[in-house]
């Protein structure tokens, strides 16, 4: 009889099997088999493994089963812009993973890093890092640092992109590389980016800081192309009916979009090739999205509804991003995520510190209590 009945059961069937994959590596498979048998993980506490000069690169993981394996560390390789890879370089990453690790990869983590798993000692961790560095790749994204800054494929392959996310990713990673590699914040900062409000990158929901491409003017309609599309069977009435704000009117072979109704939701643009986003494009910046932490799962909140995308130095983006990080650095409590800090301090305070001009773009509705804070100067010296 096989000594891995659980893993064997999970090796069958049409879906790609992680147990089959693990068996092709030097991963200590009894750790996983035992976990399934006992319904309890066999791994112990994790943390940062401090390797001189390596910053935050390595995640240490202890074992509760020294009889199987003593420990197993891993290194996170920052994912490529747009997550595009070339086999010639990727083969080298595989080679490094095989040489220094147990031959298993996590492709990709929820933060879009490649994890090289099963690294056993400091020298191997340095080896991985040095070899990766030599080929232009880098490690990090662990501990209380700015984590990897994942993007969507953006204009590289997507017609909806409003900003050039793969290049923004390259810029942001270079600009913030020290903060990505050397933890200095109260807790981690996950930054997520999407090229448009379709939000493939789940930046608003997921990001401690979210950076999302948006447009301010109305969707542009190419009436001639639209008519051709309709003639070929395109169902414009369906699209009009499903516009969430009833902003679209299709009359006499002409489509009108009502500027008093449209909320730039992307639906019509996604459905009709003749409708494109407007030209007034930029970034929206959100903060505070997360799952874990004191106040539970939270959606991100809009902090900067619109800032210009200005390559090559993305000045306004950097200013906005720095501002949020600074406030967090100064006011965040140990192991408190940005969203929890905003909740504790008050969203009004947070916006005030961010120095944004408050607008209707900052709330889904105004408040319903009168529990304000008044400053002395607002009271006209009465106090």
């Amino acid at each position, binding site marked *: 009889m096989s000594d891995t009945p659980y893993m064997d059961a999970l090796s069958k069937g049409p879906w790609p099997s992680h147990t089959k994959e693990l068996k092709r590596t030097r991963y200590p498979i009894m750790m996983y088999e035992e976990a399934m048998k006992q319904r309890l993980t066999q791994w112990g506490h994790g943390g940062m493994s401090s390797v001189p000069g390596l910053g935050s690169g390595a995640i240490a993981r202890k074992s509760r089963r020294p009889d199987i394996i003593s420990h197993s560390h891993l290194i996170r390789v920052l994912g490529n812009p747009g997550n595009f890879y070339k086999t010639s370089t990727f083969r080298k990453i595989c080679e490094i993973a095989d040489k220094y690790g147990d031959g298993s990869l996590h492709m990709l983590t*929820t933060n879009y890093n490649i994890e090289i798993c099963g690294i056993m000692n400091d020298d191997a961790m340095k080896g991985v890092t040095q070899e990766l560095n030599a080929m232009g790749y880098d490690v990090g994204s662990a501990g209380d640092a700015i984590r990897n800054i994942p993007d969507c494929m953006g204009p590289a392959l997507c017609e909806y992109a409003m900003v050039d996310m793969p290049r923004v990713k390259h810029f942001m990673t270079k600009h913030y590389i020290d903060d990505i590699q050397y933890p200095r914040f109260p807790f981690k900062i996950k930054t997520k980016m999407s090229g448009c409000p379709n939000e493939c990158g789940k930046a*608003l929901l997921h990001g401690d800081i979210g950076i999302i491409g948006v447009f301010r003017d109305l969707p542009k309609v190419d009436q001639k192309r639209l008519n051709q599309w309709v003639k070929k069977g395109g169902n414009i009435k369906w699209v009009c009916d499903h516009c969430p704000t009833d902003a679209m009117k299709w009359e006499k072979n002409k489509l009108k979009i009502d500027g008093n109704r449209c909320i730039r939701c992307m639906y019509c643009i996604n459905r009709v090739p003749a409708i494109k986003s407007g030209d007034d494009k930029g970034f929206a910046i959100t903060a505070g999205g997360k799952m874990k932490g004191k106040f539970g799962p939270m959606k991100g909140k809009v902090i900067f509804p619109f800032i210009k995308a200005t390559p090559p130095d993305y000045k306004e983006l950097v200013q906005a991003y720095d501002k949020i990080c600074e406030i967090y650095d100064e006011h965040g409590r140990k192991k408190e995520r940005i969203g929890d800090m905003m909740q504790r301090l008050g969203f009004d305070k947070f916006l005030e510190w961010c120095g944004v001009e408050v607008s209707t773009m900052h709330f889904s509705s105004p408040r319903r209590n009168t529990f304000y804070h008044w400053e002395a100067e607002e009271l006209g010296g009465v106090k």
Partner: protein
Amino acid sequence: MSKVGGVGVPRVEENLPPVVLKNYGKWDTHEIVKPGVIKRVSKTGDVCHTVRTAMPPSRISVASMLELCDLADKYSGGYFRITLRHSFEFIVVVPKQINALIKEVEALGFPVGGTRNSMHNIMACPSWIHCNLPATDSPSIAKVLGDALIKEFKNHKLPSWLKINIGGCANIEEALMADIGIIGVHRDLPIVLEDQIGICERPTVIAICPTAAIKPKGEFSVSISAERCIHCGACTMHCEAILTGDPKLDGYAISVGGKASNTGSGPDLGRIVIPYLPNNPPKWQEAVKAVVQIMDAWRKDAEPDERMREWINRIGWDRFFRKAGIKVSLKDIDGYIYGNEFARSDLRFGW
């Protein structure tokens, strides 16, 4: 000691196929040729066919990645992409070779699909493979769900797309963002290792508990109050001397209706509709049953193009629970900080 690292990431240009680089920012439309195959058309008239496959949950071997690289060399000029749902995508495949590629990559064990109105690739965290915190095992649940729903992955017969994300504990950032999410749930109190608790500072772990359940005990230890603990896992994550409790009591919850896109009713996190199901490897029959039940109710009742959340918004939670055959209990009422916001303050019932 000199600093290693600090090189950043490669420029995007270095990893783009020539056609993609040439048409950067010029893409105009796309169409789904068939499940898993997308054709993108540029304003210049160039086209780019991509072929998408499912990936094993959480871990893949170097050996398999190299085999995929071989196929990328043969069929897509040595380029590929990992999608934001961790699918493997061959980019710029010659149309005539698409069927041959599909045959080869499926023979390797990577089914092609996961586009448009199908179940997309399933996302899962490592859990029991390499984590100390899990209450359940995401990769094996993902695997059995993939096996059970492979047909939905390979065709476009769902009302809209279906995204399933799985996390082994409340740490998971992805589960509540999917149409159906599975989240590991601990039910026992964390265990304090009395002989080890002194290794770090007590104030951190006491301050980190959201409900002030952790109190100093004697000079060196802490105690955890059963009345206050909400099993959030913050202490077990940050303190080496506090372990997750009895594994026999662990399991997972199921959420529905997470959605990131701004179309329809806009982005929102999912809501948890099943508070607890028991861990049952390797078949995880309770998870498969619950997911299929929810998916079938949605498939039967939703209008074309209607995501899970939009469907629920249209019919209301009253009818959702009824149609999905899910029993409501006190566990569905949120008693946590935001709880009152989700209580009902209208009489618009869906009897």
